[in-house]
């Protein structure tokens, strides 16, 4: 179940690759060459492993973003969900720790559940707005994003929540299992689950169908509202998981986590061939898309590009990707 490109038999290889995978392979190739030329530290195993580890968080959020994009919408509130999940879970953990002094893991679990609970609410509100009331996803998630960010700041008074149980940071922030960092394992698990969802379950196929043509999906007996709701809720839940992992990493609940991640995750998806029109996109390439964004940031850091300039370039990259997405869509539709 995926792209629509079993056609166009005798086109040249590059064109076929573009139609199938989008602009990512080309961008990735260019980035590798440019940054390798700019810094000799870039193309080292150590640096690339490092990039891989750093990209875990963006990949996770992008997976959720991909669901919503494929369903034909997008979610600007993922950054807010990260902040909210961080603040809520941290506050609850800190409050629960003295209640269960002998069971620190119970306190952590309750805190994590509270974090996921807040994401459930945010995703649910997004879903209701988009699916039931037909609000444009842009405005809906932008509004919710402001509400959530305000709440996160309000709950903490703008002060980071500290005093989290050590075990939390030790395991989920810096822990390793079989030598692999726990966040990487979490991400790998999510990637696998997401692949199964999109390629092998009816729900995944329904999300593709709703994004492709919602009216046709309705006439194929799909519960379109439920499908959209699930997409937004899953997106929020994955963002919340990312929020928890980041909280464990910084060992405080912070309302400013996830600042630019909404834009970055959309960029990662679009570059990876997820169409902004909905209905098209693949899990495997989105993983690479997230990796690519972090790779570019890493390369720019090594090349000593200022962080202000990095913002400019990231935005430009997104716009470029959207333009290529448009071209690709036209090619798919016309077979040329």
């Amino acid at each position, binding site marked *: 179940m995926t792209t629509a*490109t079993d056609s166009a038999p005798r086109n040249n290889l590059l064109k076929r690759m573009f139609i199938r995978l989008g602009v990512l392979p080309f961008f990735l190739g260019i980035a590798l060459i440019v940054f390798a030329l700019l810094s000799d530290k870039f193309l080292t195993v150590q640096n690339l492993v490092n990039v891989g580890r750093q990209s875990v968080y963006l990949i996770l959020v992008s997976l959720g973003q991909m669901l919503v994009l494929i369903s034909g919408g997008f979610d600007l509130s993922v950054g807010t969900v990260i902040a909210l999940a961080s603040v809520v879970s941290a506050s609850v953990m800190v409050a629960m720790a003295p209640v269960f002094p002998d069971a620190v893991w119970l306190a952590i679990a309750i805190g994590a559940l509270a974090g996921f609970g807040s994401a459930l609410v945010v995703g649910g509100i997004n879903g209701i707005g988009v699916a039931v009331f037909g609000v444009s996803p842009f405005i809906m998630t932008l509004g919710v994003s402001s509400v959530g960010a305000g709440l996160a700041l309000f709950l903490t008074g703008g002060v980071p929540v500290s005093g989290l149980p050590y075990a939390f940071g030790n395991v989920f922030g810096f822990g390793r299992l079989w030598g692999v960092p726990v966040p990487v394992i979490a991400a790998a698990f999510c990637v696998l689950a997401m692949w199964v969802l999109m390629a092998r379950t009816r729900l995944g196929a329904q999300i593709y169908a709703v994004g492709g043509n919602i009216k046709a999906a*309705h006439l194929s007996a799909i519960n379109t509202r439920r499908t959209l709701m699930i997409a937004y809720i899953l997106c929020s839940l994955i963002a919340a998981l990312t929020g928890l992992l980041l909280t464990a990493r910084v060992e405080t609940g912070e309302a400013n986590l996830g600042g630019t991640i909404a834009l970055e995750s959309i960029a990662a998806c679009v570059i990876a061939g997820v169409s902004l029109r909905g209905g098209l996109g693949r899990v495997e390439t989105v993983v690479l898309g997230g990796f690519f964004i972090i790779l570019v940031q890493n390369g720019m850091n090594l090349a000593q590009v200022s962080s202000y300039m990095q913002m400019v370039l990231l935005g430009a990259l997104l716009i470029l990707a959207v333009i290529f997405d448009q071209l690709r869509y036209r090619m798919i539709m016309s077979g040329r």
Partner: protein
Amino acid sequence: MTDTPIIQTRALTRAYPGVIALNRVDFDLRRGEVHVLFGENGAGKSTLISLLAGANTPTDGEILVDGRNVQFSTVADAQAAGIFTVFQEFSLIPTMTVAQNMFLGREPGYGPFTDHRAMRKSAQALLDSLGFDVPVGETVVHLSRAQQQMVEIAKAFHGDPKVLILDEPTASLTDREVDHLFATILRLRERGVAIIYISHRINEFERIADRVTVLRDGAYIGTTAMADTDEATLVEMMAGRAIRDIYPDIPHAPGDVLLEVKNLTAWGVRGASVTARRGEVLGMAGLVGAGKSRLFRAIMGIQKIHGGTVHWKGRDITGAPTRHVIGAGIHYLSSDRKDEGLDLAKSSWQNLEIDLMMGREARGPMIRPRALRSVAGDIFEKVELRDSYRSQVVAQLSGGNQQKVLFAKSFGHDTDLYIFDEPTVGVDMGTRAALYRLIGDIAASGKAVIVISSDLPEVLNLSHRVLVMTEGRISAELTGDARTEDNVLRYFFDDNGESA
């Protein structure tokens, strides 16, 4: 008639990777003639006119206008040469009024200011001269499809064309509107305008055609004067074989009543009662906007039911959501395959498989791609969709093949009642025959079929029983020998002879 044709093509060719859509076609159009392009889907008609209209560029060959070689790279280029085209796809802006749409890009006025009154006035004058009954101040989104089509045509006439190309302009018009359109076409012909007219319906264009050019598989088959030919010859030229009768003989074996609708009211439906039985094809005839489509869209849960009841196999399903109605065994094939039928950016396989997953092959949360593929293959065999079209993106298929995919989708569910809403809109003769055979097979297998259609011969020839709808009500039920075109037409209008 002067000697130089107004348009002439020489070895005109348009090739795509792997397929030649138009292969060395020589075509000529004379001043003041109505020239019909006739052929099955994929025969190259649309490609030919897209080249003449400037919407597409040839890969080889040349186009001569008034004997001079021209190269159009945009539609505006062709319009500058006096060639105007009404494409099948509408180009209207739904949120603007009729007048605004007609004058889009050439609004009358002073400098940057638009003279709205002058615009409405000349829009009205143009519509009147065409005999089209469309309110100029109305927003396009509120118009019926037929009225939108009229605005689309009026827009082209507005440019004072030397050549007017009409791509199946009557697909959603009623007979009366078609009469108006034909009168207009003939008037234009008097003025020396040359008209290229694409149609699948011989009995329609034989009234206006001067010459007919037949295309098949992208190649030119021949041109003949309408007066020198007949339906059988043309169909044979088009199909490369004789189609004796495109309508199958459907055995009438009425069984149990499956659907019983009593006094249903909904938007555009003012109290309609319908029953559908196994082994019977029920036809729904009526003007566009008479409510024949809305009645069934309400039953399907696509629009709200205000009153009345719907019983399915004895169970009350009034107001049930669409997916439950489908799950209960009723399938609705939409009249608008692009807007609400197909996912255009996906392959035929993917379009069908989603229905299988939701219908016949729905077992558990996981899908088994291989099992799905094999069932889908059987269904594509049944609807006669060629192998090479199955993995192609649906947007790239011809109208007829898209319609086959849409039919295939209705076999993805366990269905006892098939509701086909305008099942052959924009579909060529050969495909239509195949789709009619399918409809016949369904009824013969003891299922119930409802055919909603504005195409009178279609409703009359397929159905055992015909209901005529007028202004949201059932105005007549015709069975047996009463099923004649005259009878149906009589009930199309109210007693005073006025339409809605």
